[in-house]
């Protein structure tokens, strides 16, 4: 699965995108796996209320299932316009 990071999430983790092999069933499980990896992930995912998630380029929430997902992205609340 491709995992993408944007804005300060990208900066904290130190890369924009990586390929991850995971059997996580939900976004929350994926976040737990990432947090356990290294300090920079733990820091980036410290406060989930400050984060948003998209699965296959659709905004969703952290309960979302990952079955069949090809791309998950994490980022702060959007500031377009």
């Amino acid at each position, binding site marked *: 699965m491709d995992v993408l990071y*944007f804005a300060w999430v990208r900066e904290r983790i130190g890369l924009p995108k990586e390929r991850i092999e995971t059997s996580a069933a939900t976004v929350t499980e994926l976040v737990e796996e990432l947090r356990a990896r290294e300090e920079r992930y733990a820091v980036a995912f410290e406060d989930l209320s400050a984060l948003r998630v998209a699965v296959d380029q659709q905004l969703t929430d952290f309960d979302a299932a990952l079955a069949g997902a090809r791309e998950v992205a994490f980022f*702060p*609340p959007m*500031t*377009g*316009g």
Partner: protein
Amino acid sequence: MRVVVQEAPFDFGAECDRFAAGRRDMGAVVTFTGVVRGDGDLATMEIEHYPGMTEKALTAIAEEAQARWSLGDVLVIHRHGPMRPGERIMMVATTAPHRRDAFEAAEYLMDYLKSRAPFWKKERAKDGDKWVAATEADEQALTRW
């Protein structure tokens, strides 16, 4: 409907003119453009986005506006990359037989692309860089619709 995501500047006047041209069945044309404000010592505003999702999100927002109001056409142009104060970041435009529809749809587009399209702004100033935080007011604006 036209949705454009690009790094290059766009010609606001020419886009307004082209969008409004030949609308014999539409009485009302509304346009909005957002400009980088030169607050404090801001040097550049840098806009990051999510290629692929950005286009999908903007298209979905424009389609929803067309479903909710009686519109003739919708235009959305949004830039990414670095911009200086005074540069135009984005524009939306709507046409409708009646002015209220055109105004409401343009406000809807703005409210949604502010908080639901994957763009993130970073302000670069002399005393450091700062990600622009989403505001409670922008999130609240969505409850209108």
